[in-house]
């Protein structure tokens, strides 16, 4: 696979196929779908963080105009929503896995927990009726704090989870780490809070359940990143509908960032209710509802220690983390702080000994699960803050300390002490390119100039790695995954030579319809406009595990390559027959089959037609038709990495931090469409800046109420909060997939938060501020400056 110079091929910034429909208002998002006779669902949610349901009186509500049906936990007769990943504790015991019914039976466990399903002729009527339901609650004490959840006296979320502990897990060689710390020249310690975030895809979740009495078939239209996974989880575990009677369609989906991976109970409710009321049932979340029902992200509290020798070489790392699961276990929640997080603790460094402990706790909050980066931003933030602090404490230049500990370019494949084997990378080069583009050398002059204007200017760096291209099935199976993580791709060559591509991945902004068409058009030598990519419908696509973990090109694209290999192999035999040659002598290049050393050739289109009109055809050896499916199970994770540099300017009078400049240099392997790649990095970086400076899900400690439940309270990054971003790549190829691609969806969000906070702390160093928690809001920065000033004055 190489750049071919083809203007619509691999390596070209082709304009996107999907844009015309989105720009003209012709996209079809779930809420745009109207099924004939559809009714509207409204979900009555708990106003309390923790309470017993004493009584639900629906009599008055049921008599309201336009009410079709009202269901409560007592009516719901199917299964609970399952968790897809099982972690075992240090002592070998399995994690505590509480039931999660779509409608609460007797107790609510977070604000927004589901109490009743109201179905009306219109949404307004359903909502009016929901207001008339009288629920008697007995309020109970709530726990929301991650740090305090396992402490004595904390409210208990689940009877089976003693001290609210879901699991207490570890990874690495504790004895080796203890021994290394014993002989350390210097130890740097840090406490890190990785705050809770709301993913906030701009399209709120929606679901429509439909039931066909004539055939007994169910259809669910849903805002999902992985319709086949929803079909499997909902069909097999929740509603007991066999796959052949259940179709799941994820049409245009307006962003996901992880939050639309998971099987949500609303999906099960509308599907279940559609059969009960014998009408299609549609539910659309509003934004306030999304804040209390979409899985949230991050929420880790960690203590970390790094042992260094006298030259600044890292000897060992130990990390202890508490991770908040929320009130229920969402689909992938347990793997985020463990196998997606602790396994990355080597980072880009040669640290020989690492030990990590992770305790997962239940609280009376919305469930926490994967959000863009999922575990890897948490680890990167911890490591890069720790390394920065070690540089400050030892007096070693922060760039030099990183260089000193980088895994050398010739050390790959590199086995880390925490399970992973990195296949390729070049951390020195991404660092050097970033330093140059960011004009690191010229920074002190800019700091001095800013000082003259009364501003505090700082620069921060982060050198990072992530594991994505998720994932080798046998490996993740041994680590607790309850599914395989291969991908499926199908290539249908039509008689006239046009091609439909079926992929099990799902595009919700990533532009697969364009990127995959480039890959297929270039490989088969058919025009770009003759290739159409289909995704998101279990009745069309053979199978699929969906899109998350930056896996679509590395895993899904590789499946397409494997399917195309089969197409070319078969087409070669047809071409050989047509040219009366041996298949071994036939070459395929630029859409043409030729016999080596002769001028005999046939175009791909003629071979396709022959496959479907097999008059002159090797029919005894070969079936007609030209369509192939492949499943690709990756051999390893992929390891994108790179260097992010952020420059900030702080107004000490207001505490306002302005990002003056941001430079991202990433190694993502083979690039198909550079325009789309840059867009992915821009978006990820701004989500990272959002985490560092603006965003936070704040819960009231006493009542358990979410205080940031709307865009009036939760600070989303807006156009005037962020700068333009300088993006470049320096790519080494993934060595174990046929494309060499590593994935780009998450790098921006993973590398950026520590670069921003390291810059903020660099700016605040002259005024004596040594630590700050995310988000570094104006009030927090201003207060830190004031406290540091008072402390100095007191000295």
């Amino acid at each position, binding site marked *: 696979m190489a750049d071919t110079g083809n203007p619509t091929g691999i390596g070209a910034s082709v304009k996107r196929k999907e844009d015309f429909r989105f*720009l003209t*208002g012709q996209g079809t998002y779930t809420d745009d779908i109207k099924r004939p006779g559809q009714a509207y669902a409204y979900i009555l949610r708990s106003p309390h963080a923790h309470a017993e349901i004493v009584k639900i009186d629906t009599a008055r509500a049921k008599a309201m105009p336009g009410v079709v049906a009202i269901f409560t936990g007592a009516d719901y007769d199917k299964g609970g929503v399952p968790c897809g990943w099982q972690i075992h504790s240090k002592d070998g015991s399995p994690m505590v896995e509480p039931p999660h019914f779509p409608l609460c039976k007797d107790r609510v466990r977070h604000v927004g927990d589901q109490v009743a399903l109201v179905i009306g002729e219109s949404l307004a009527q359903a909502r009016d009726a929901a207001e008339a339901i009288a629920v008697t609650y007995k309020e109970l004490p709530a726990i929301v704090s991650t740090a305090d959840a396992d402490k004595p006296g904390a409210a208990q979320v689940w009877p089976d989870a003693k001290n609210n502990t879901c699991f207490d897990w570890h990874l690495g060689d504790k004895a080796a780490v203890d021994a290394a710390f014993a002989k350390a020249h210097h130890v740097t310690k840090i406490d890190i809070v990785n705050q809770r975030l709301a993913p906030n895809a701009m399209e709120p979740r929606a679901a429509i359940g439909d039931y066909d009495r004539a055939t007994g078939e169910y259809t669910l239209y849903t805002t999902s990143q992985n319709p086949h996974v929803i079909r499997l989880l909902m069909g097999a575990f929740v509603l007991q509908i066999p796959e052949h009677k259940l179709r799941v369609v994820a049409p245009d989906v307006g962003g996901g960032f992880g939050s639309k991976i998971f099987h949500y109970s609303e999906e099960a409710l509308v599907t279940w209710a559609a059969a009960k009321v014998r009408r299609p049932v549609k539910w659309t979340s*509003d934004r306030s509802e999304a804040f209390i029902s979409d899985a949230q992200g991050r929420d880790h509290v960690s203590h970390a220690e790094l042992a260094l020798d006298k030259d600044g070489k890292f000897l060992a790392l130990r990390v202890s983390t508490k991770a908040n699961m929320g009130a229920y276990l969402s689909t992938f929640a347990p793997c985020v702080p463990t196998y997606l997080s602790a396994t990355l603790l080597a980072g880009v460094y040669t640290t020989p000994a690492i030990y990590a402990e992770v305790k997962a706790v239940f609280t009376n909050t919305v469930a926490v699960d994967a959000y863009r980066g999922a575990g890897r931003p948490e680890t990167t933030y911890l490591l890069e803050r720790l390394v920065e602090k070690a540089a400050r404490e030892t007096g070693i230049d922060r760039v030099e300390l990183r260089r000193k500990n980088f895994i050398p370019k010739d050390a790959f494949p590199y086995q880390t002490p925490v399970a992973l084997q990195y296949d390729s990378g070049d951390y020195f080069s991404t660092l050097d390119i970033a330093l140059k583009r960011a004009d690191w050398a010229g920074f002190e002059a800019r700091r001095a100039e800013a000082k003259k204007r009364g501003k505090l200017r700082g620069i921060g760096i982060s050198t990072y790695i992530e594991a994505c291209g998720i994932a080798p099935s046998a490996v993740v199976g041994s680590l607790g995954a309850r599914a395989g993580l291969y991908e499926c791709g199908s290539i249908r060559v039509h008689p006239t030579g046009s091609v439909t591509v079926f992929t099990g991945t799902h595009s919700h902004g990533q532009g697969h319809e364009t990127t995959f068409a480039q890959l297929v058009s270039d490989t088969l030598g058919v025009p770009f406009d003759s290739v159409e990519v289909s995704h998101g419908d279990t009745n069309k696509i053979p199978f699929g595990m969906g899109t998350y973990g930056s896996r679509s090109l590395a895993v899904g694209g590789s499946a397409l390559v494997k399917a195309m290999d089969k197409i070319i192999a078969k087409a070669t035999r047809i071409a050989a027959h047509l040219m009366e040659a041996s298949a071994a002598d036939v070459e395929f290049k630029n859409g043409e089959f030729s016999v080596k050393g002769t001028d005999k050739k046939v175009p791909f289109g003629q071979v396709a037609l022959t496959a479907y009109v097999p008059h002159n055809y090797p029919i005894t050896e070969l079936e007609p038709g030209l369509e192939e499916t492949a499943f690709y199970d990756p051999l390893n994770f992929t390891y994108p990495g790179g260097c992010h540099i952020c420059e900030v300017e702080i107004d000490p009078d207001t505490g306002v931090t302005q990002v003056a400049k941001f430079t991202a240099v990433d190694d993502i392997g083979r690039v198909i469409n550079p325009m789309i790649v840059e867009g992915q990095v821009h978006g990820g970086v*701004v989500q990272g800046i959002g985490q560092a400076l603006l965003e936070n899900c704040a819960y009231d400690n006493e009542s358990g109420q979410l205080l940031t439940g709307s865009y009036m309270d939760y600070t989303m990054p807006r156009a*005037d909060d962020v700068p333009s971003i300088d993006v470049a790549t320096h790519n080494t190829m993934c060595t174990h997939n046929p494309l060499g691609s590593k994935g780009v969806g998450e790098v921006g969000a993973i590398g950026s938060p520590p670069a921003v906070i390291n810059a903020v702390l660099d700016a605040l160093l002259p005024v004596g501020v040594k630590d700050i928690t995310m988000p570094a809001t104006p009030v927090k920065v201003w207060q830190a400056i004031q406290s540091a000033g008072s402390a100095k004055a007191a000295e």
Partner: protein
Amino acid sequence: MPTVKMTVNGKPVSAEVEARTLLVHFLREHLDLTGTHVGCDTAQCGACTVHVGGKAVKSCNMLAVQADGAEVTTIEGLATGDTLHPMQEAFRDHHGLQCGFCTPGMVMSAIDLVKRKADLSEAEIRAGLEGNICRCTGYHNIVKAVQAGAAATRGR
């Protein structure tokens, strides 16, 4: 129920609606113009932005009855056949959209923004789009698209 009459994308429409019906729901539910999206419930995200009387308005923040008699343009009304409005074209050329959900509102706001002032600086574009939230693009390419769209609109 009150009757509302208005002109939407050049066509006269009228319907009986509940008085509490928001303009965005009138467009989406009654006229099937689903290009206008609902991304929040506090008039913050701007996904529902349309033009009422030639000005950008968040249609979630206005009742349908308030638009009685008005000229309304939605994202569906911008292109002429398959020929995109220069601002739509600029968004495509500069990859100013990813998932497409905020895009209709973003484009409608951008058209109003560049109409109000020629030669906008990057900072002015960023400030002018403050009422439209995008989670995918990080705004980088949206700003580039609006700059290009402004130039193309002036040149038209």
